[in-house]
């Protein structure tokens, strides 16, 4: 085994134990690391069907396939215009790198999800959104152009103006249209790395909804909701809104994360520990409206400060269940779902509620105008049956499930939520994408 010296042209393919961020499902799969465009072009005709994988931060099975192609090594920044904030980079770059490089120069992402540890390619494939969705839409809003390798190895640039159909299918298309090689998008100018945060403590779901409406002008808003509280206090929340400060402090450096060193025994996370945590977290906040000045990491990426936080759910992993309901039906639908959750006692620490803005044209983007709730459930007996019941309520109120979080939804539930699903399927079929780009999720959902 000492220096085995055969530099054959066989490409690096190795068996790896892979999962999404939720740690479920976890499978031994082939992983190929792409060195560059030429390398990918060479292997694309000969390897079977595959899915591209970024940093593996989608929760479920979106980035899993019998062959996974990782583009994480290709993370070069190719151009940056320091007058307009337009950046062109390879798709394997992490948002965290962009933030570290550009915040000190006065630029920030127009749209960022709740973790900065996703690649630009992943952000496009899931058309991610953030706390400013109601103002600024999804990640695709900031996109100017995508450079994509198609199933035959050809390379196409697509945008809102050029190859529009391909662009609409690719943003939010879960990597099922091709391999995203590069992206051009614009950053927004900021004067500070600090956020002026306002916290509004509400006593029930009604008040929470009112608060969202009242603070609709805030650039950033999101609510943590106590999903185990029942009766009069059901839906009590802490709504947090934020604006970038203008104090001129751009001295940003990301702090080293503390780590969860091992999988917690799954028994630690139970009805009582979650209920206790939620109660403490709620009571710790000041009554009514309070103001804080916080760094952007703690406002946008609170969980990134804990490395491998997914381990608190134990070795079997967890499911993040995220759905959205149209605004009109949100109050009724959410009430029903929250009742069900608190009755079952299958609660989670991290229940996040948010009011979204208008939906975009992309075929499979998740957001629509309405309220979305995201909940973590550790994998346990009875969970999947329970989630099926939640699915039915989501359907009843014309909602939809977020693919980037999903590992288990059924085909019929999924497709009712996405009116453009047939266009997406047709497009994939007509472009020869269906045979080349497949994930466990796309196979389950017949995408």
């Amino acid at each position: 085994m000492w220096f085995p010296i055969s530099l054959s042209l066989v490409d690096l393919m190795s068996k790896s134990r892979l999962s999404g961020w939720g740690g479920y499902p976890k499978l031994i799969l082939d992983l190929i690391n792409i060195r560059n465009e030429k390398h990918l072009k060479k292997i694309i005709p000969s390897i079977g069907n595959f899915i591209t994988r970024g940093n593996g931060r989608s929760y479920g099975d979106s980035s899993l396939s019998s062959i996974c192609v990782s583009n994480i090594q290709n993370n070069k920044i190719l151009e940056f215009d320091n007058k307009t904030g337009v950046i062109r980079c390879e798709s394997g770059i992490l948002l965290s790198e962009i933030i570290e490089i550009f915040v000190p120069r006065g630029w920030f992402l127009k749209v960022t999800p709740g973790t900065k540890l996703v690649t630009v390619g992943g952000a496009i494939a899931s058309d991610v959104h953030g706390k400013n969705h109601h103002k600024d839409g999804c990640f695709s809003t900031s996109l100017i152009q995508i450079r994509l390798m198609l199933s035959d190895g050809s390379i196409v640039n697509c945008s809102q103006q050029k190859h529009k159909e391909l662009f609409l299918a690719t943003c939010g298309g879960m990597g099922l249209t091709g391999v995203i090689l590069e992206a051009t998008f614009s950053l927004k100018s900021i004067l500070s790395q600090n956020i002026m945060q306002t916290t509004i403590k509400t006593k029930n779901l009604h008040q929470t909804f009112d608060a969202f409406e009242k603070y609709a002008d805030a650039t950033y808003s999101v609510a943590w909701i106590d999903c185990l509280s029942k009766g009069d206090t059901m839906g009590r929340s802490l709504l947090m809104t934020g604006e970038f400060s203008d104090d001129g402090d751009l001295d940003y450096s990301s702090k080293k994360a503390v780590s969860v060193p091992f999988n917690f025994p799954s028994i630690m996370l139970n009805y009582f520990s979650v209920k206790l945590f939620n109660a403490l977290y709620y009571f710790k906040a000041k009554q009514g409206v309070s103001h804080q000045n916080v760094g952007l990491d703690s406002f946008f990426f609170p969980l990134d400060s804990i490395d491998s936080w997914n381990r608190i759910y134990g070795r079997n992993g967890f499911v993040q269940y995220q759905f959205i309901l149209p605004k009109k039906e949100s109050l009724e639908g959410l009430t029903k779902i929250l009742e069900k959750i608190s009755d079952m006692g299958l609660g989670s620490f991290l229940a996040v509620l948010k009011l979204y803005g208008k939906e975009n044209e992309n075929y499979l983007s998740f957001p629509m105008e309405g309220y979305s709730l995201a909940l973590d459930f550790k994998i346990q007996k009875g969970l999947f049956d329970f989630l099926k019941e939640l699915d039915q309520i989501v359907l009843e109120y014309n909602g939809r499930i977020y693919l980037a979080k999903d590992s288990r939804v059924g085909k019929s539930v999924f497709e009712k939520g996405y009116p453009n699903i047939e266009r997406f399927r047709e497009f994939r079929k007509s472009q020869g994408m269906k045979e080349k780009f497949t994930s466990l999720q796309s196979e389950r959902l017949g995408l």
Partner: protein
Amino acid sequence: MNNNWILILGAGSDIAIATAHKYAQNGCSIYLCSRNIKELKKEARNIEIRHEVNVDVIYFDALDYESHKEFYNDLPVKPKGVLLAFGLLGDQEAQQSQFELAKSVMDTNYVSAVSILEVVSQDFEKRKSGFIVGISSVAGDRGRSSNYIYGSSKAGLSTYLEGLQHRLCKSNVHVLIVKPGFVATKMTADMNLPDLLTAKPDEVSSAIYKGVEKKKNVIYVKSVWFFIMVLIKNIPKFIFKKTSL
């Protein structure tokens, strides 16, 4: 623009790129030199944008010895440090039967290194400052049947650098010999390397930067390699001959 340039020879390698980033991060401007200019231009832009330094890409052919003097003299600003990162591993079995292949390993790893570094040394010696980092290999510490052609060329390089070290220390020029051990790079992409013994290019570049700062003479990136090589070097020959290392 005072003398803040680092000259990287064989800039296509992963160790070279990681080292370029490391020095750029510390405010140095970089010459990236290799035969493959096209790929390097992207990398150059990447380093420029990330670290806000100047990066020049210059054509350099290690095997074209004749060109070395002109190449160095044409540099607009003479560097304060040089990283010699080119190298060729190749397929030992093929090299055993095809001398041309063996020769290209020796030419790349040893002959061209001597050719270019003599040019650099003259300049540094005259200026009485500068540092030279040479990427050698643990494979040069003892000849083994599985890769003695590569190994002997690296042994030559190590001994050459050692001599240079001796000569140049009198002129305040520092020479650092790097023996990385296993590194996860393009060169080793299809090998199944044990994690504990394998360094990432980032670790190598950090070790190089630190090694230069602290004026180390020889570094093994993962210190375990020092002990492994002490062990291997000291296995008595009659036992060593029975192993298949």
